[in-house]
């Protein structure tokens, strides 16, 4: 049901088990206990970076099916997207599965965009089980958006490090402990930042707009959530978002964090201004945050996945970088 300007409420969408598969750096980070599988090598046993990312995605699908005790034929649809040209990871991986598939692109906001679309399919009653997922790989993103991995150019301090991770989450109409109770669909916001090495600050205004709209639509405030988490704003984008809220006299600092900063140990691991990529928000949300909801640490959280809608060609043409942020409320149902 639509609520307010751009939000939706769900009453019948529950969250099953998620599966998260990560690369070596993510597994050395503070959240390693919350992942289902990890590879010690960035190639993940494959011959190319793209195939390595497909391997992560495939593992995540398989683990998620087995954790939920489901066969492929029990799933009505899989929704996914990634950062490669023409979102090949999902489509090529699903050649081997008899699964209806919807490919979506929302850059790094995909993990939540999928939840909103899947949530609607369940809520409408047209589907009973939908898998939602996404993936990213450090090396595929480097070659897609930046330079060859071994190129010696100096990266500025604002750059983020793409997470090597794939996450899959089951949405179902079977009542469970966790539910997806609301969502806010973001608008494309361009704050006229044109530095592709500072995507955190390029996306922060879109997160700001989505969260402000969310508070208005649901008539809620930061205190209503145990945690508000953004996808991959980096240290600089996080700082900017806090200052943006300070300007309108809303204090979100105590309840706010960023997935890219939770995923790694900022002091010991060399990830520049923080983690990023579709897999970053998916790994932290589908793995760590859902566990924290299940073990009663949190009751209700707001996940705001943030995407930078650029490609290298349009940036080379001196265009600015628009951002988009989608938000979902995930909460625990206490009997």
């Amino acid at each position: 049901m639509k609520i307010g300007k751009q939000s939706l409420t769900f009453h019948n969408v529950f969250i099953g088990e998620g599966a998260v598969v990560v690369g070596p750096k993510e597994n050395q980070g503070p959240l390693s206990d919350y992942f289902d599988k990890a590879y010690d090598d960035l190639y993940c046993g494959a011959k190319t970076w793209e195939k390595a990312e497909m391997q992560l995605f495939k593992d995540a699908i398989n683990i998620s099916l087995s954790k939920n005790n489901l066969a492929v034929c029990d799933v009505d649809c899989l929704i996914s997207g990634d950062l490669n040209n023409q979102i090949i990871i999902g489509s090529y991986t699903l050649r081997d599965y008899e699964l209806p598939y919807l490919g979506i692109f929302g850059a790094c906001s995909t993990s939540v965009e999928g939840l909103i679309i899947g949530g609607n399919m369940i809520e409408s009653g047209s589907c009973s089980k939908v898998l939602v997922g996404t993936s990213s790989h450090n090396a595929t993103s480097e070659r897609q958006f930046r330079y060859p991995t071994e190129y010696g150019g100096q990266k500025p301090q604002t750059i983020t490090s793409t997470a090597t991770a794939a996450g899959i989450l089951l949405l179902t109409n079977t009542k469970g402990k966790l539910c997806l109770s609301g969502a806010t669909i973001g608008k494309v916001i361009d704050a006229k930042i044109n530095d592709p090495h500072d995507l955190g600050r390029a996306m922060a205004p879109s997160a700001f707009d989505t969260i402000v709209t969310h508070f208005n639509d649901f008539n809620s405030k930061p205190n209503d959530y145990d945690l508000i988490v953004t996808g991959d704003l980096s240290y600089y984008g996080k700082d900017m978002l806090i200052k943006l809220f300070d300007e309108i006299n809303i204090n979100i600092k105590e309840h706010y964090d960023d997935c890219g900063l939770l995923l790694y140990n900022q002091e010991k691991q060399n990830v520049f201004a923080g983690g990023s990529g579709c897999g970053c928000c998916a790994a932290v949300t589908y793995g760590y945050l859902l566990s924290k909801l299940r073990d009663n640490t949190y009751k209700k959280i707001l996940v705001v996945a943030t995407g930078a809608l650029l490609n290298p060609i349009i940036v080379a043409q001196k265009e600015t970088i628009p951002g988009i942020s989608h938000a979902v409320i995930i909460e625990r149902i206490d009997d």
Partner: protein
Amino acid sequence: MNEELKNVIEKVKKETTPKRKIFINTLKAFLVGGLICLVAQIIIEILMKSFGFNQEMANSIAITIMVFIGSVITGLGLYDKIGQFAGAGTIVPITGFANSMTSAALEYKSEGIIFGIFTNMFKLAGSVIVVGVISAFVFGTIRYLLGI
């Protein structure tokens, strides 16, 4: 978005623009770049004094050796780490040119020899070649016209 939020974004955007560490980066680039040049100079001196090459020949051999060293360090996965510290200090010398070609060759190996390596090897280094040819033409013409 309403005007109020737009103004807030514009204001905070200006306030949070990160400052680049230009001084410290320049210093690091100077030191590491200088060190690379020192190594090349030592090689030239050895070639001239111990092997009896003339200056021109010693220069050419030294450049070849530096390109080789740059490529090997890239292949070992170390050049990008040194480059992160040194910035322009490792990009400007000839070893940086070697790195830009070797890293591209390694990166595009997965697309095959012709459409991968051959097609993309000059992807980063190509700009250096183009600028080199254009400047050689411009300065060569000036030199000719001035009769130097």
